[in-house]
């Protein structure tokens, strides 16, 4: 359980970190809180030649409003900080609710939002919330920043739209003024990864029908995803149990559902439908 050798850098600025990435390319890994990466290093599932630790870069941990109904969250903001932030609780409670069910206390004290997203675990909790929120992710490269839509960010197992010379530096989420939200996950034990995790963020019209909805799904396949065909079916619907139940099972339509010792593909697909119904009802009740 000892990692293989690597070069270690702890740059003081983002620019230095970026030039190290340009130098090492795919041989470098970026270290944030380390709650996923240190495990991979120990198991030698990852053996990078170089580790670039963002821990000494001071200005990557923050939560504030941008004045245009969004919250900007620094990539190095830890789960515990998200869970305890009054601004998040008030303006984007879905993130708080999700942060509170990530791993255990020790993981939440160290693990970061940016680390979770850039690691792109197919069963990570945060990606589901970020997808349902239709958040944007800021990739900082050596020459410029670019914003990536959350639905375009997750490409496959541990694979994202980030280039080898880019660092995820900020996440932009909408303030949920008149929206209701919930994240529910099914796991054998509370600190486990999700067998299925469903995030919902919806807006209801005055007559109670669904005006708009964002969904994020995790734990099902090789990457977290946003089932836009289900969102489309829900729009304009009444959101009573019958209407939700009618569309719930289509959440895994066209998806290659994983099976493992915790849940067969059939059971996991069933759970996804049940948890979608429950999450929508939890959001409405929130």
């Amino acid at each position, binding site marked *: *359980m000892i990692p293989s050798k690597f070069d270690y850098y*702890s740059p003081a600025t983002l620019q230095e970190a970026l030039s190290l990435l340009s130098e090492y390319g795919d041989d470098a890994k970026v270290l944030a809180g380390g709650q996923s990466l240190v495990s991979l290093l120990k198991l030698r599932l990852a053996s990078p030649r170089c580790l670039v630790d963002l821990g000494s870069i001071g200005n990557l941990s923050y939560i504030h409003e941008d004045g245009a109904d969004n919250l900007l969250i620094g990539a190095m903001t*830890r789960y515990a900080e998200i869970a305890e932030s009054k601004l998040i609780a008030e303006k984007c409670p879905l993130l708080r609710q999700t942060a509170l069910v990530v791993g255990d*206390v020790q993981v939440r004290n*160290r693990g970061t939002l940016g680390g979770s997203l850039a690691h792109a675990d197919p069963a990570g909790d945060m990606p589901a919330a970020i997808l349902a929120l239709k958040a944007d992710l800021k990739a900082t490269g050596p020459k410029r920043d670019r914003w990536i839509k959350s639905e375009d960010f997750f490409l496959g197992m541990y694979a994202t739209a980030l280039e080898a010379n880019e660092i995820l530096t900020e996440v932009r989420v909408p303030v949920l003024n008149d929206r209701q939200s919930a994240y529910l996950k099914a796991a054998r034990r509370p600190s486990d990864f999700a067998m299925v995790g469903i995030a919902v963020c919806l807006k209801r019209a005055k007559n109670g029908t669904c005006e708009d909805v964002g969904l994020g799904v995790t734990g099902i396949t090789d990457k977290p995803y946003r089932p836009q065909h289900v969102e489309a079916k829900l729009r304009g619907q009444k959101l009573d149990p019958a209407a939700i139940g009618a569309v719930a099972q289509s959440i895994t339509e066209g998806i290659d559902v994983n099976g493992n010792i915790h849940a067969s593909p059939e059971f996991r697909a069933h759970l996804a439908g049940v948890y979608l119904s429950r999450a929508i009802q939890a959001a409405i009740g929130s």
Partner: protein
Amino acid sequence: MKFPVEITVNGVKRRSEVEPRLLLVHYLRDVLEITGTHVGCETGICGACTVHLDDEAVKSCMVLAVQADGCSVTTVEGLASDGTLDDVQQGFWEEHGLQCGYCTPGLLMSAHDLLRKSPNPSAEEIRRAINGNLCRCTGYQTIVHSIQNAAQKMRAKKPAAAKQVQPAKLRTSKRKREQRRPATV
């Protein structure tokens, strides 16, 4: 390639040169020979290696020693003073919160993390707070009682402070030090 680190452990500044791949738990046990922190699963599951890093519970097998540079670490050895158990240790002692004791150092540190934020936790809250610590002996029942017992002792001592809840601080500038480069290449 070794890196200089300065880590305050149980109030004492320690300077060492370490390989970047050295885990914090091995730094504590093998380099400093402070062995109260136990190595359990080494995969971030069991929580036996839980210590406080800048006053928050972390699993020391999930942190590289170089990441703790400039930080303060408290291990189970840092709890008792002058041979007198602290409230949480005493709480475990009185309620038989351990049998073999292997998980105990980690559970004590997690209990402290909880009681700092929540001085009067419900049994359910305690169970949620220790879900990153595995115990194979007690079935957790006596551990929950122990933490409730400790909470009571702490509240009795600090009735005013018990109402305060300290939120986690955003770390805008985590460490004040120069950029690290290899000491020897």
